[in-house]
């Protein structure tokens, strides 16, 4: 007997399902997320000595604006809030608190610099706010056990210096190595990574080191001192301005070491050309993105897409800057993660998606490099390829390798 109870029950069940379905379609939201928008917070050094990195934030903003123009992510617009911290940790703390507590962002993204990120990672982890794809290659960011909400993006400096160390051990076993490095975490991580990668040989092989401050005018004197040590191999860990000076000085004083150059400063347009193209012949570096000044990529659709984004968003002055490509790829990763989160835009789920990326290929990453993460491996990009400068552009050689940095 179909009693009215059954009808009521089935009606209730039906309505519950509909309501539940509606709730699911409406999404689960953490702070900063809604049907119409996703709020992302970011701090960048738009001023001060590190201001040349500010282009990364501008590229992020441009990319997100483009995505919004195309309809957003699952119908939601990205509200990208980016503020200047001048590379000063107290300011970063203040801005992070403002974005988390006042602006109520869903997550912090691509915050730049090791000291600024060190200043806020305790706060963000305590408050369970995702600190994703931060713009620094320091080795300590891959620590899901202690800092489950913090994730880097670029290959760590340790990974890169291990790649160089392996190459040296294999091809230049008797090398006497000199290192020019910036006196901060960026420089020191490379130096320590090199030491670590050379293992027992390190103290024998590394014969001289010289450091410089970003407030210095020049590194010429350091280069001369390093030549004086009798080294036949040089690793330059410097930002573009000083790398260009170093390359030029090495050539000018007639020194011909096996010269390794950090990927941060290997852009043809902003480093090799100012230094003098002929002065950089034979330098070895590593890369994981396509250099926008390299003719071999300039006919591809991927490059043209990137270039179109840059010129349509007032960034034509930065079309030779490799950092702009890195920012582009980073932003694409963020969008991919948010897309994967679907309608479940809670901080937990966003973090979960970030930690389960499977084989993501991005148009401006070098062929053969893809992104995967897991719950114990928070390293996002871990592969690079060695390349040698031939006077016009960088010629990739060897295979795509994973450094075994920590």
């Amino acid at each position, binding site marked *: 007997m179909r009693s009215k109870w059954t009808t009521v029950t089935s009606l209730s069940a039906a309505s519950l399902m509909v309501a539940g379905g509606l709730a699911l379609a409406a999404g689960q939201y953490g702070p900063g997320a809604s049907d119409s928008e996703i709020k992302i917070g970011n701090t960048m050094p*738009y*001023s*001060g000595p590190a201001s040349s990195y500010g282009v990364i934030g501008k590229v992020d903003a441009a990319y997100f604006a483009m995505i919004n123009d195309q309809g957003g992510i699952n119908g939601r617009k990205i509200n990208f809030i980016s*503020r*200047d911290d*001048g*590379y*000063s*940790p*107290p*300011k970063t*703390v*203040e801005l992070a*608190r*403002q974005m988390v*507590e*006042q602006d109520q962002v869903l997550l912090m993204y691509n915050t730049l*610099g*090791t*000291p*600024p990120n*060190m*200043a806020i990672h*305790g*706060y963000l982890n305590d408050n369970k706010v995702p600190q994703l794809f931060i713009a620094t290659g320091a080795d300590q960011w891959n620590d899901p056990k202690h800092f489950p909400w913090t994730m880097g993006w670029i290959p760590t400096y340790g990974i890169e210096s291990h790649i160089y160390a392996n190459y040296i051990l294999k091809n230049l076993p008797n090398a006497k190595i000199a290192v020019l490095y910036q*006196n*901060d*975490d960026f420089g*020191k991580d490379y130096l320590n990574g090199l030491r670590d990668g050379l293992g027992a040989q390190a103290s024998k092989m590394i014969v001289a080191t010289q450091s410089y*401050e970003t*407030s210095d005018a020049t590194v010429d004197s350091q280069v001369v001192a390093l030549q004086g040590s009798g080294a036949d191999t040089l690793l330059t860990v410097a930002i573009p301005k000083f790398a260009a000076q170093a390359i030029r000085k090495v050539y000018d004083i007639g020194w011909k070491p096996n010269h390794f150059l950090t990927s941060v400063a290997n852009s043809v347009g902003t480093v090799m050309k100012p230094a003098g193209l002929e002065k950089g012949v034979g330098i070895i570096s590593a890369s994981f993105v396509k250099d926008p000044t390299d003719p071999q990529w300039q006919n591809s659709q991927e490059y043209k897409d990137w270039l179109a984004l840059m010129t349509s968003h007032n960034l034509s002055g930065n079309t030779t800057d490799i950092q702009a490509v890195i920012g582009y790829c980073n932003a694409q990763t963020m969008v991919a993660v948010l897309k994967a989160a679907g309608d479940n835009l809670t901080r937990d789920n966003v973090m979960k998606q970030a930690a389960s990326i499977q084989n993501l290929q991005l148009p401006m990453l070098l062929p053969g490099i893809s992104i995967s993460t897991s719950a114990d491996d928070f390293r996002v990009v871990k592969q690079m390829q060695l390349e040698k400068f031939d006077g016009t552009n960088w010629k990739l050689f060897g295979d795509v390798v994973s450094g075994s940095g920590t």
Partner: protein
Amino acid sequence: MTKGIAGADGLAAGQRAGLEGVAWRWIIALALIVLAAVMPFALSNYHVFQLTMVMIYAIAVLGLNVLTGYNGQISLGHGGFFAAGAYTAAILMHRYGVPYWATLAPAALICFALGVLFGLPALRFEGPYLALVTLAMAVAMPQLLKYFDTWTGGQQGINLVKPLPPAGLGIDRDRWLYLVVLSALLIAMRIAANMLNGRTGRAFVAIRDHPIAAAAMGINTARYKTLAFGTSTLFTGVAGALSAVVIGFVAPESFSLFLSLSFLVGSAVGGIATIGGAIVGGFFIEFVPNFANDISDAAPWAIYGLAMLLLMYAMPRGVVGSLGPWLAGRTGRLDFVARRSLAVEQKDKGRKS
């Protein structure tokens, strides 16, 4: 307006208004203090944090006021002393587990000693030369901090656990720290006022305005100048220690040359030879960069620079430095220091025109 300028008139009027004047000042001061103590409970955590930073900067700027405003010795290096205080507190807390409130005294002592040590050779220098020597301090400090990395954590800095408020008080960490810093600020202002309105202050000002006459009158300029330096760095060092506690992180990058310059700017904007001006300076340092960013995110520091310019044009003696004498002039009360400053102004005016 003869009432405001130094002279028998002004003094007599002030003396007549004496008792009432004093009572009024105490009432206003008390009201402000109560307001300050109650305010954090009406504001969000983030704003409380910002106001705490304002007060920390105010204490630092107060230190600079003592040295540059009252004693006439310019310093472009107070960021370095701020760093010294911050790292003292950080190392004590991180390495030796000292509770945060017990780090203030060591920071004060160490920074006082540093200031005296610095003040001794600084006796030889004046004007731009002294500026260079103090500038060297500001620039050398980050290098030294990075070098002694076993103690300071080097580039990575030191991460600190933020202190918990005493149990049973029922307020959260941000508000508790606000009250702690507020107390420190009030104590600092009291000490400064006592010192500066007394014999020491008069000696400072005499040395600033006319060092030869001061020496001729028997003031031991070397001793007072060194004392000024030490006291100044003591205040700024304590501010630094508080900043380490409140922000929870110290790194060499936090103490750049720009910080030293900010203190100087805050000092000038508030009123270099005032005590209340330090608070205005603190507000300037903390909030104007944020406002500038809101106005123009393309060139915010140009706006900040413009703000500095406009304030100097409108009030070259700083907000409290200009408004203070004006207000006091109207009520007929001017303290010794203000009268001296005005007199020096009149004399200086003839110099360039």
